[in-house]
């Protein structure tokens, strides 16, 4: 009964002191003086804005990446009790006392610190020696660029953390595959792989490169699994299914979840509303929702509406007209109809109101019951304030002579008949008799000719070739008109609209709109003083000045350890050449390497060289502005490869003991030189010391580095 008493209770703790020490060192290097400088450093100015928006729950749109990274940063702010009240307008601005700098910078710093022990573990899981693993971790520890990047409110260190976590989890999963498939551990690491891939993608789109790499490696392994004839068909199927769920379904679900949380958190309208569709805006609190709430849904004959262009480029604007007429003769000598101007106006205005009129009837108010307007109906649009009819005719438009002019018709009695009948074409209709719904329906008026729009100039397109978005309009504000008399109607137009029901878009609709807008929003391709090209990264020909002390010459730069960068690139080249050589030899059945060493070598190369290549080469195809920090994820993979290559050289290429000893000595010498360079650059990494111009000049190891030297 009391059998358990007969044996002592034993707790065996297996603590790898290496790991503990590395973690400690990592934390020390990343967290030391974390709140210094107490000023906005480089891109903090950019991410800080979004943190403030999260704190205030205001909707924003950022095309640089999915929201998970921003949310993690905001979590730091939330934990530190940040109220979001800080004007992020200038790099170098002093933080006010309400900004919890430490907790804002904590998460990226933790991620950076934990990357160090993780590098150790990855190399171990690749079945290389402890010594090699220590080497990798120590290199990560002293790499200046990684330290700088993880001590600030920036996303790269989080991205690198999840990249490494994905690789590590996959390796752990793969290594437990042989002895204990479908065990708890196996499942844990498999799901962890999917989760961390998803997190990486959720932080920056760049994460997708690592995701594809892991997927690729997993696919090759799955293919071997299929070829394994000792497994039954069912077993293989289960294996494949488990991988598909964990590596494909879980990431997608998680990605959607990020957006779900993002949209849940941000429910107030904000400065970026205008980019989104009216329906999306109506789902936010405040802003458009306040105006549109409770408008009648179905547009009827007699409805008063404002029409917003769906395209929203270059500016979102509303169909507008005013008393002024087109000039009789344009500057370039072409003539116009001299009728009332119709434009697209980017501001809310009383002149944006139009009344939908049935051409067969005279009155402008809504019947009781309202007679809804349907797809295909012929309508006239009456401008509310001037009661003129929207008209287009075969006169060249003011700026786009190949299109027709659109005007509000004034009868000059000059044999120019009014052409003011418009056919309603609801683009997103479900059936042919769909009614015209406020906000939700997108319509393009077809006046035999269709209408389009260029540069805030309204033109009628002669032919509707497909449906370009700039020819589609939706009704944003809407109310039923009640009065027939012109004065009363003007009064009515000035009144605010009536209010009641709210319309909600489904999550998927909002997600797809937001995602689409984020991917297609073209930020103007800006040049930046510190932008660089991918070719400059490998050789570290460029740097970025992050911050300069307002008075002294203390400064922070994103600047790598040149010894590490150069030798990491060298290691990549060595690896590729050796790999090619081995491959050719094996093809001719000349084996230099034992089988297990070869498979380790291939696996390490696939993940490290593959990781470097997949995180680096795609940048050559990108046309956006690029910075040095885009290279950091690729660099981490290169750093992992470096000690692996060194061990390989020592194990397999050094023939005698003497050679091996000499090689080890060289490695130690090389590592100390790396440490030396690292300490030398430390003042630029932490920015804690003011340096004299002479010292700064001495630090300028490459001519192309831009180190700030005060002139006086």
């Amino acid at each position: 009964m009391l059998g358990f008493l007969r044996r002592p209770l034993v707790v065996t703790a297996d603590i790898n002191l290496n790991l503990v020490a590395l973690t400690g060192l990592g934390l020390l290097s990343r967290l030391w003086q974390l709140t210094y400088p107490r000023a906005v450093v480089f891109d903090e100015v950019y991410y800080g804005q979004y943190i403030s928006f999260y704190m205030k729950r205001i909707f924003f749109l950022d095309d640089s990446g999915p929201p998970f990274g921003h949310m993690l940063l905001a979590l730091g702010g939330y934990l530190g009790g940040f109220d979001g009240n800080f004007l992020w307008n200038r790099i170098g601005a002093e933080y006010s006392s309400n900004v919890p700098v430490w907790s804002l910078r904590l998460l990226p710093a933790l991620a950076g610190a934990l990357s160090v022990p993780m590098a150790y573990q990855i190399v171990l899981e690749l079945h290389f020696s402890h010594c090699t693993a220590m080497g990798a971790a120590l290199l990560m520890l002293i790499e200046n660029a990684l330290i700088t990047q993880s001590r600030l409110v920036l996303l790269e260190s989080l991205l690198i953390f999840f990249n490494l976590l994905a690789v590590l989890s996959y390796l752990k999963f793969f290594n437990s595959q042989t002895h204990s498939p479908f065990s708890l551990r196996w499942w844990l690491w498999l799901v962890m792989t999917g989760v961390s891939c998803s997190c990486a993608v959720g932080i920056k789109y760049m994460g997708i490169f690592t995701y594809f790499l892991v997927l690729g490696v997993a696919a090759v392994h799955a293919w071997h699994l299929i070829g394994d004839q000792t497994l039954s068909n069912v077993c293989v199927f289960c294996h494949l299914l488990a991988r598909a769920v964990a590596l494909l379904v879980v990431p997608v679900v998680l990605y959607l979840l990020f957006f779900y949380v993002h949209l849940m958190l941000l429910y107030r309208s904000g400065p970026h509303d205008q980019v989104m569709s009216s329906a999306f805006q109506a789902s936010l609190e405040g802003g458009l929702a306040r105006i549109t709430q409770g408008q009648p849904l179905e547009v009827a004959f007699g409805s008063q509406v404002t029409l917003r262009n769906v395209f929203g480029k270059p500016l979102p604007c509303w169909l507008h007209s005013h008393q002024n007429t087109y000039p009789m003769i344009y500057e370039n000598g072409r003539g116009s109809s001299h009728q009332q101007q119709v434009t697209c106006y980017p501001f809310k205005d009383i002149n944006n109101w139009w009344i939908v009129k049935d051409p067969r009837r005279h009155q402008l108010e809504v019947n009781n019951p309202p007679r809804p307007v349907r797809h295909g109906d012929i309508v006239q649009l009456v401008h509310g304030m001037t009661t003129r009819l929207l008209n287009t005719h075969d006169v060249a438009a003011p700026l786009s002579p190949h299109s027709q002019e659109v005007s509000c018709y004034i009868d000059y009695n000059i044999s120019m008949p009014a052409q003011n009948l418009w056919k309603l074409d609801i683009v997103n209709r479900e059936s042919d008799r769909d009614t015209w719904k406020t906000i939700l329906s997108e319509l393009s008026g077809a006046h035999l000719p269709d209408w389009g729009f260029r540069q805030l100039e309204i033109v009628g397109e002669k032919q509707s070739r497909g449906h370009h978005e700039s020819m589609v309009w939706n009704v944003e504000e809407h109310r039923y008109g009640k009065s027939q008399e012109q004065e009363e109607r003007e009064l009515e137009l000035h009144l605010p609209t009536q209010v009641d029901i709210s319309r909600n878009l489904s999550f998927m609709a909002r997600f797809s709109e937001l995602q689409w807008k984020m991917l297609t929003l073209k930020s103007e391709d800006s040049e930046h003083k510190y932008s660089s090209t991918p070719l400059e990264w490998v050789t570290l020909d460029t740097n970025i000045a992050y911050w300069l002390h307002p008075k002294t010459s203390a400064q922070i730069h994103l600047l790598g350890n040149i010894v590490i960068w150069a030798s990491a690139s060298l290691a990549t080249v060595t690896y590729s050449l050796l790999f090619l050589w081995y491959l050719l030899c094996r093809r001719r059945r000349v084996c230099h390497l034992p089988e297990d060493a070869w498979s380790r070598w291939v696996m390490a190369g696939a993940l490290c060289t593959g990781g470097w290549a997949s995180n680096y080469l795609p940048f050559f195809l990108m046309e956006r502005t690029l910075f040095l920090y885009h290279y950091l994820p690729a660099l981490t993979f290169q750093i992992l490869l470096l000690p692996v290559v060194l061990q390989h050289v020592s194990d397999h290429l050094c023939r005698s003991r003497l050679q091996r000893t000499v090689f080890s000595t060289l490695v130690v010498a090389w590592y100390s030189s790396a440490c030396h360079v690292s300490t030398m650059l430390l003042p630029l990494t932490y920015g804690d010391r003011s340096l004299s111009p002479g010292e700064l000049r001495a630090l300028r190891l490459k001519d192309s580095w831009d180190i700030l030297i005060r002139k006086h």
Partner: protein
Amino acid sequence: MLYASGRFIAARAATTFPTPPKGRGPALRGKRRELHIPGHLESPSCDALAGQRTRPSAPLAGRVILKRGRMPPAIGGGLAGSELRPRKGRCGSQAARARGRDVVPEAATRSPKRPARSSPQLEAASRWATLAVVTFLAFATRFHQLDQPPHICWDETHFGKMGSYYINRTFFFDVHPPLGKMLIGLAGYLSGYDGTFLFQKPGDKYEHHSYMGMRGFCAFLGSWLIPFAYLIVLDLSKSFPAALLSAALLTFDTGCLTLSQYILLDPILMFFIMAAMLSMVKYNSCADRPFSAPWWFWLSLTGISLAGALGVKFVGLFIILQVGLNTISDLWHLFGDLSLSLVTVGKHLTARILCLIVLPLLLYVTIFAVHIMVLNKSGPGDGFFSSAFQARLSGNSLHNASIPEHLAYGSVITVKNLRMAIGYLHSHRHLYPEGIGARQQQVTTYLHKDYNNLWIIKKHNTNSDPIDPSVPVEFVRHGDIIRLEHKETSRNLHSHYHEAPLTRKHYQVTGYGINGTGDSNDFWRIEVVNRKLGNRIKVLRSRIRLIHLVTGCVLGSSGKILPKWGWEQLEVTCTPYLKETANSIWNVEDHINPKLPNISLDVLQPSFPEILLESHMVMIRGNNGLKPKDNEFTSKPWHWPINYQGLRFSGANDTDFRVYLLGNPVVWWLNLVSIALYLLLGSTLAIVMQRGVQLPAELEGLTQVLLRGGGQLLLGWMLHYFPFFLMGRILYFHHYFPAMLFSSMLTGILWDTLLRLCAWGLASSPLASSIHSVGILSLLLGTAYSFYLFHPLAYGMVGPLAQEPESPMSGLRWLESWDF
């Protein structure tokens, strides 16, 4: 339709002749005998049946038996059926060889005798007859109504014009390499076209000018696509029905037909692509006889075709990639074959380097040499090229010119940007529009020579008359402060703290001041790159930068195209980033100063490699510059395979003669379905094989055809399609056609294999024997009928548009996006 039906009789004859016996026994033996003989008869195409060299030899389905096309009915169902399958006879000789000795003797013993079916001569004759019929049909469809419409259609306006330039020997610039246009020019020249037609805009009537030579040449090359496709598929699959189906799909595709009938680069490009593919396939099948004459022949022909493809358009790079991949895998197999010595492998490698790299490169360079030699007169393309380049064009102001060597105050100059295809610093009497910086005179860069490119270089503080002979000549030196006055409008080059029109972070550059009197914002410091202070500035040679004195920014061109208000010239800005880029470096080109002695410019003649390099830089930049404008309807790559939208070649209204480039929807959608089916079937079979399931030999053969042959075609399709998704330049529907060729060939192989698989699966039922021939035949007939329906798209239609009920095309507008 007349052609089509005629063709089917022939096709049918080929498929069913000679009628196989209903008996079962002797198939294998008979086949084996037949297999060897035709191989010898068919001499230039080196017969693939001869073997698969060192690869673990894949049993390829035997050609001769397949030609019979009909399965002998299986006798005895179930197990017996599978046992008999090898004898149903579609594995070729290698299959038999691969399977080893155990099968053959068994078959031989079981099949005592079999009446001789057909003489080998008849076989060969029927094969040639089929090829002849296919070729004839191709030519007939392409040349039918070739002269219609007798006016310029679509891009004929460009390529016809460029053909004329060759005839007139005037220099021009185009974003594509020159071979295609040279061939067009040659065809025009030989057919008596004198190069006088202006080719101004689509719709212009040719009248008395001879245009049929050029169209005929394009149609001639376009027609060869079909026999090529036929031969490629035949070689890959060893199956007549598959080859016929592919040929029919291409013959009856209205898109291919339309594209082959006009003076365009595409038929020429596709000709070379298909020729390269065909010769590659042929030389692959010669692999068992390396270094034999046919082997060398096909290998070097591959190289020649590659040079041709690349010489027509850069799209040729994709087929080069495909041949490259094929060669690498080929060499990899040779290298892994331990029975070959390293020396032999080295020979193989050298042969490929010679034929696939050196030879095409030589040819390609030759094409350019001819291009440069032929075009020796100044023409519309001069401004795209550097000053040194222009010096060799007769008629250009720099040709045999002599101009003052050193820049002096008072000189009238043109200033050219160092980056290629940017052009000359330019200004004109138009202001920046309201809302875009200050309303001052526009300054742009312009690619063509023009009076508005002339500037006068003046001292910043005096406004003396430059021509005044009393003033001594004073040279401009590195580091001087100068003012540039626009000669035509007398305004100074000016910059200030206003945003540039397109590049917001740069400053606006304008023309300012009246009669040369402006303000301090007109002062620029002239600097020579890599030079010391006080040096004189050399015309053409010195690379100069102009630094704005007040703001410290550098004059440059962003290379962006200004909107309509700027006449679509390029933007000039003053950039605050001082990095030395070609955008902000200029050189002085024309230089007029009567007070200075002239020197000859012959020293500037560039060498041929320099010319080659420069032409390529200009072409690449030109290609990248073809960006879609905002609010323009552009064709997206995903539109193409679904045949979403065509291109209007000619005519828009109902009274016009209308030609509309649109793929035959039946063909295209069949292709689309086939790719999906192929992926499904291919991956299933691959997984099955990876699981180590032992397939019956017959299926094994089909699988090999599907995975190897089909795989190559799928690769071709992907290589010619997916890169377009990455391209930033403006894209058109017709870019898809090379990919479409591959996709049609894949369709042929897929359906043939699929039907055979069906027949095999249903071996026990009586349907099995006919399912294959019926299937192929219905596909052929269906395609032909759809061609009958859609042929007006290609041959032209007059009358009401398709949406009118009385139009002959009414009811055929299956997608709303087609507007014919």
